[in-house]
């Protein structure tokens, strides 16, 4: 496995040339959103400058160009995910959160009844919890959680019991707090063995490790473009064609119908059925360009780079701080992604993040929209540093220097 040179990527990211608070910007918040390379920004600029028109409607030249660019983006997503049914399985949403809301409202309402169980995990983001609670409150399903072990992994010892009555398992591929990479294929096999489906939250995984829907054998996958070098405002719900074909529409309006009369409407086929109104066209083009950028570097190389960087960061933090800095997550390894949730002894995570900002380091303090997990960990907040393909060991060294400053100030 050849590991690429992150310096080449850094040259493509304008924001990494900025100086903030007198220091070069050190961006360690890719778990929240990634920094787009110039090619992504230029692709969207070019669209607005030359090709902008509404999609799926006009017959004129630029409308055809806009439609082709938008649908090419769907094809790029399907290729990137190795979607077994191709582009028609790719639904564009607003973001990963809307993807889960679509899944819960459309598939959930049509396929679940009172007493049916949806099995989540304790390490889920609120986006994969709250929509299921809303559905529970509306139709009386049960929401159950796979617990997390003391070594920050899913506790699958009682999975057979947990799966009783389950119609859908919905689990993150990689925790946005712990960095834990979950055994998706194992969960897919276990879910399918009891006639349940598996939905996967790919928000933290798609930009950082290979996604192969055929190998994963899941039934739904949700993620956002802006965490994979693309723009905000667009996300994806991928689903198996047969499942999408049987799902009722989510949002209603133009673009999602075959026919409307004064007494009824007829919905279009998937994926258009789920894309009411003018879609985020420029954003889809940006997403596709982000995917092409990732493919150019190589997703295997990105994973190898981030794995090595995570191992370097974990050992560097342990060397410098011992027990005074705790990393809430598994040790370096194959099931460990580049997300480091830190607590610093006697310094609150907000203060850690504030002091790091003063030396130009961007990390995220707080509960990371995963309050059930934070309660399990027994911490109110952590300071989270998360990597992207553009980070390198020098970024980790600056983080360590900033943390040393925080421990001194509050000593």
């Amino acid at each position, binding site marked *: 496995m050849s590991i690429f040179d992150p310096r080449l990527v850094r040259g493509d990211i304008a924001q990494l040339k900025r100086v903030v608070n007198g220091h070069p910007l050190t961006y360690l918040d890719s778990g929240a959103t990634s920094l787009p390379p110039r090619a992504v920004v230029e692709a969207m600029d070019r669209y607005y400058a030359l090709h902008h028109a509404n999609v799926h409607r006009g017959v004129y030249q630029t409308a055809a160009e806009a439609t082709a660019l938008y649908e090419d983006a769907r094809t790029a997503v399907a290729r990137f995910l190795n979607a077994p049914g191709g582009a028609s399985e790719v639904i564009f949403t607003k973001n990963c959160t809307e993807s889960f809301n679509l899944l819960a409202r459309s598939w959930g309402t049509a396929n679940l009844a009172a007493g049916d169980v949806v099995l989540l995990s304790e390490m889920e983001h609120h986006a994969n919890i709250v929509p299921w609670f809303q559905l529970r409150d509306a139709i009386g399903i049960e929401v159950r959680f796979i617990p997390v072990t003391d070594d920050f992994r899913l506790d699958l010892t009682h999975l057979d019991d947990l799966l009783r009555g389950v119609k859908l398992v919905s689990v993150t591929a990689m925790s946005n707090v712990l960095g834990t990479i979950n055994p998706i294929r194992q969960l897919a096999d276990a879910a399918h063995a009891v006639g349940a489906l598996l939905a996967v939250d790919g928000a933290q995984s798609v930009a950082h490790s290979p996604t192969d829907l055929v190998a994963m054998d899941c039934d739904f996958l949700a993620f956002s473009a802006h965490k994979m070098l693309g723009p905000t405002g667009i996300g994806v719900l991928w689903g198996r064609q047969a499942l999408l074909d049987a799902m009722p529409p989510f949002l209603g309006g133009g673009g999602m119908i075959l026919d409307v009369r004064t007494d009824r409407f007829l919905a279009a086929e998937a994926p258009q059925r789920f894309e009411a109104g003018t879609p985020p066209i420029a954003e889809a083009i940006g997403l596709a360009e982000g995917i092409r950028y990732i493919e150019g570097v190589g997703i295997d190389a990105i994973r190898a780079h981030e794995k090595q960087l995570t191992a370097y960061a974990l050992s560097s933090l342990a060397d410098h701080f011992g027990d005074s800095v705790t990393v809430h997550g598994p040790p370096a390894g194959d099931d460990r992604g580049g997300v480091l949730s830190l607590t610093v002894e006697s310094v*609150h*995570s*907000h*203060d850690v993040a*504030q002091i790091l900002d*003063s030396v130009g380091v961007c990390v995220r303090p707080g*509960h990371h929209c995963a*309050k059930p997990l934070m309660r399990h960990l027994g911490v109110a907040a952590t300071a989270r540093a998360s990597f992207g393909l553009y980070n390198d060991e020098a970024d980790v060294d600056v983080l360590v220097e900033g943390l040393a400053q925080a421990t001194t*100030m*509050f000593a």
Partner: protein
Amino acid sequence: MADLEELYREIILDHYRSPRNRGELTDPAAHRAEGFNPLCGDEVLITIIVDDGVLTDIKISGQGCSISQSSASLMSAAVKGKPVSDVRQLIDTFKTLMTVHGAQLEESDVEIEPVDLRSLGELAALQGVVKFPMRIKCATLGWNTLTQCLDDASL
């Protein structure tokens, strides 16, 4: 860096390390209110005793960053033993301190009377917070919760 030192003044760090009036009043006559900052998970529980229009005792518990905890601690020291009317006045003054600069940051044309920092005593140490707009909610959490407590008790 100067700004950072202005934010984390020694008084603030002192109140964070050794919070005053820490705990919870168990007296059945105590009024209580809980405040949360849903964005960051900070939480504060305030219990007070008001006797004949005077806030005679206050205890604060909860968890959060140095700014939210020290601001609540400084507040408890400032309001304890004061008539409720003075407490309300102080809350208003403090919240104005937290918004004057906020308005300046947005280059608002609205003229707001400057706060007399002398009337705030040690609380003036928190004025550095307003240069960090993301932290103003931390500093005001305890104060909003005390307002809630007084409102709930119709004081």
